[in-house]
């Protein structure tokens, strides 16, 4: 179906369709879809995939009957179950959860460069049908765990979540995506870190083969704030992790890390983009991937240093291990630097498991498979050992063991 017809037909279910400004913007987006030539070579958002499947989709959304559950387990610790991208409102003296409002629509979605380069963000803006907003109040130290549940098959969820960490606050956020049905979930996280706040963001992704997960996030960091994101991708379906970060005031930090484990015909697209717009900021982008069978992955990393952003430190690292002869990995670590007093670097390696290391282990009596497994575990050991949450560490270990059991 034509994207415009699709939109008009389902308009009543889509957020903010009565708002005139938003409507005009959406018309512009429809125009982009109709006039773009979908240049696979130069558009990072559509590499390796057939965009047609995502544009000519059947729209289906169900408003959940059972509203979500918010539990306050202990002091400062909350668990949220979000159903079909929705979450009921909640308020206490530490956090506040509300629906997203018209004005939240403009965050990140209205952005000229994004509009022309990221078709999935455009789809999200067009068909937005769910989402919520969490505010962590001043000087609080909070833990939140969110489980994302999708109730039915063939649902198309277009969700936008806003996270705001007020001054001096600290948030430990764990998001779980474990879905077994054939749905498509297109999620946009907009994160705002006020002065001196901190957010540790963990994303655990483990979906079944027919579930598509498209996550985009955009974080802005103000003075002395710190955003750390860690993505663990064990999904068997298509996953896209595109994460943008902007350091807009001095002494802020962004740390975007990810590891992904692919097998079969799995496709995974990753991108991290850090924009340094102020002095004395630091950024770090590290992605590691293991690819088996006919899996395909891409990783685009980008550090942009503005002319004013002196004393910047920006590092990138990308590592890929190809376990089978049909796997392929594409990486493009980019640096764009307009200031002179900077320290920026990137490194990228792709290759098989080190044969000398395998030889060493085999000469000590290990089978080849055991040796391979040990070396894979050690490849990502740094990331695993840095998890300070005992419970999460166990979850990830379990998933890793499951992945390794299929390595031959």
């Amino acid at each position: 179906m034509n994207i415009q017809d699709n939109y008009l037909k389902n308009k009543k279910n889509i957020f903010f369709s009565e708002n005139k400004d938003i409507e005009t913007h959406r018309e512009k987006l429809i125009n982009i879809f109709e006039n773009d030539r979908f240049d696979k070579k130069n558009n990072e958002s559509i590499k390796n995939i057939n965009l047609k499947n995502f544009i000519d989709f059947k729209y289906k959304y169900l408003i959940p009957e059972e509203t979500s559950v918010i539990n306050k387990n202990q002091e400062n610790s909350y668990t949220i179950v979000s159903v079909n991208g929705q979450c009921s409102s909640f308020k206490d003296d530490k956090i506040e959860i509300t629906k997203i409002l018209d004005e939240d629509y403009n965050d990140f979605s209205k952005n000229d460069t994004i509009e022309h380069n990221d078709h999935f963000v455009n789809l999200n803006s067009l068909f937005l049908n769910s989402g919520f907003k969490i505010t962590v109040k001043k000087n609080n130290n909070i833990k939140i765990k969110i489980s994302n549940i999708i109730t039915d098959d063939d649902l198309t969820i277009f969700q936008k979540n806003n996270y705001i960490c007020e001054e001096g606050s600290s948030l430990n956020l764990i998001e779980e995506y474990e879905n077994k049905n054939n749905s498509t979930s297109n999620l946009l996280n907009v994160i705002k870190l006020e002065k001196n706040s901190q957010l540790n963001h963990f994303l655990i992704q483990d979906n079944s083969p027919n579930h598509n997960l498209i996550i985009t996030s955009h974080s802005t960091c103000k003075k002395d704030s710190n955003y750390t994101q860690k993505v663990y991708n064990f999904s068997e379906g298509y996953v896209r992790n595109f994460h943008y970060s902007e350091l807009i005031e001095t002494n802020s930090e962004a740390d975007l890390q990810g590891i992904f484990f692919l097998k079969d015909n799995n496709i995974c697209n990753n991108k991290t983009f850090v924009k340094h717009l102020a002095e004395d900021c630091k950024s770090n982008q590290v992605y590691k991937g293991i690819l088996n069978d006919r899996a395909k992955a891409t990783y685009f990393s980008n550090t942009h240093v503005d002319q004013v952003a002196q004393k910047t430190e920006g590092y990138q690292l990308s590592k890929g291990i190809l376990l089978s002869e049909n796997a392929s990995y594409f990486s493009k670590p980019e640096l764009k630097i307009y200031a002179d007093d900077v320290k920026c670097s990137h490194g990228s390696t792709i290759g098989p498991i080190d044969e000398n290391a395998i030889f060493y282990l085999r000469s000590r009596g290990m089978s080849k498979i055991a040796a391979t497994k040990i070396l894979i575990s050690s490849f990502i050991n740094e990331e695993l050992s840095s998890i300070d949450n005992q419970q999460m560490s166990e979850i990830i270990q379990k998933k890793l063991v499951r992945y390794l059991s299929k390595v031959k």
Partner: protein
Amino acid sequence: MNSETLNTLDSYSKNKYKYGFVTNIDNEKPKKGLNEDTIKFISLKKKEPDWMLQWRLKAFSKWKKMKEPKWANLNFPEIDYQDIYYYSAPKGFEKKPKDLSEVDPKLIETYNKLGIPLEEQKVLAGVAVDVVFDSVSVATTYKGELEKLGIIFCSIGEAIQKHPDLIKKYLGSVIPAGDHSFSALNSAVFTDGSFVYIPEGVKCPMELSTYFRINAENTGQFERTLIIADKGSYVSYLEGCTAPKRDDNQLHAANVELIALEDAEIKYSTVQNWYPGDEDGKGGIYNFVTKRGLCAGKNSKISWTQVETGSAITWKYPSCILKGDNSIGEFYSVAITNNFQQADTGTKMTHIGKNTKSKIISKGISLGKSQNTYRGEVSFLRKADKARNYTQCDSLLVGNRCGAHTVPYIDSKNNTAVIEHEASTSKINEDQLYYCRQRGLSHEEAVSLIVNGFCKQVLQELPMEFAVEAQKLVSISLEGSVG
């Protein structure tokens, strides 16, 4: 300021680009613009056989349908292809001079100013020079001695007439006319360039060199160079460029094709110092070059070395297609941009054969308000077992109004291939500067010394003839922008 100071300043600023002079020789040109008649005119002037004309026309029809590639991080006004002369040859050159005494004395003088007196060069340097002055080869020296070894070193025009078999077989085999719009343009209107054929088992005893020089105003130069190294042979080829000072932008779209057969090795070195435009970014050469080498045979090797200091716009990606098993591709580059120069340069290594190896060392230095981009692609295709790549690209920033960008594309489809890429960007180390200043060097000398050290890894790959010149060039490029 009194008038004397102004005069001194004036004369000083005029002297900045020391190769910026114009030789007044009558030019015989066709009308401006690009159409089939222009191509027929060129072909007629070059006395080409019909198959060549057809080849050109085919390329032209492809070009008409193409758009300029847009991937580069460059900013320039649209090129008006109808406002350019596509052929200009000094009058009376339809008949080639037999020796130097027949050459227009003004030309000889030009070369003397450039510091390459042909007469002396014959005796002194042991370098055979195939000079391109505008579009016609003026004199080819050392030919006889090369002929004894069976080496063919002549202008491409001559090769089309004398060695049609080789041309038919190899021209356009590495860079197809329809590859992109600049290669199609070049294929349609190329006027001159060099042709080298090294027969089986021959090691070329001297460095072959061409001195390109753009002269007549508004004449784009479209050289075509084709080098074929047959089995087991070796050749080292030098290319150096300077251009007279001009205000109008001059378009330059050269194509260079290298073919290395089994066990052959080709070393291709370039020093490019075309007019980069003035301090306000006015004028300068637009340089859109396609260079590609094919390691066709087993154990073959192609090595590109380039020092890029000139041109307002540089768009250049010397690449290697590593098709033969065990073949090797190398790329060493120094790119310096100053004032308003823009450079988007790098390489493309395509690994097809087994055990193929490639190495990329790229050093970018940005000064003034310039933009310097490294853009490189390394790809391992499915059958490139045990292929290996190492890439290092470093950038140095001097001043806070310039930009340094690194855009590598890394694609691996083989699980036994290993790829390593590293890059860093920083400014000149304050401690090193302090150390040099303490020992009595001026700020400018110190920067020049450090930059030369930064580039050393690449400069040492250049043949002797070039190495000294290149080092001087690096220092000259830094002048006036530091401090």
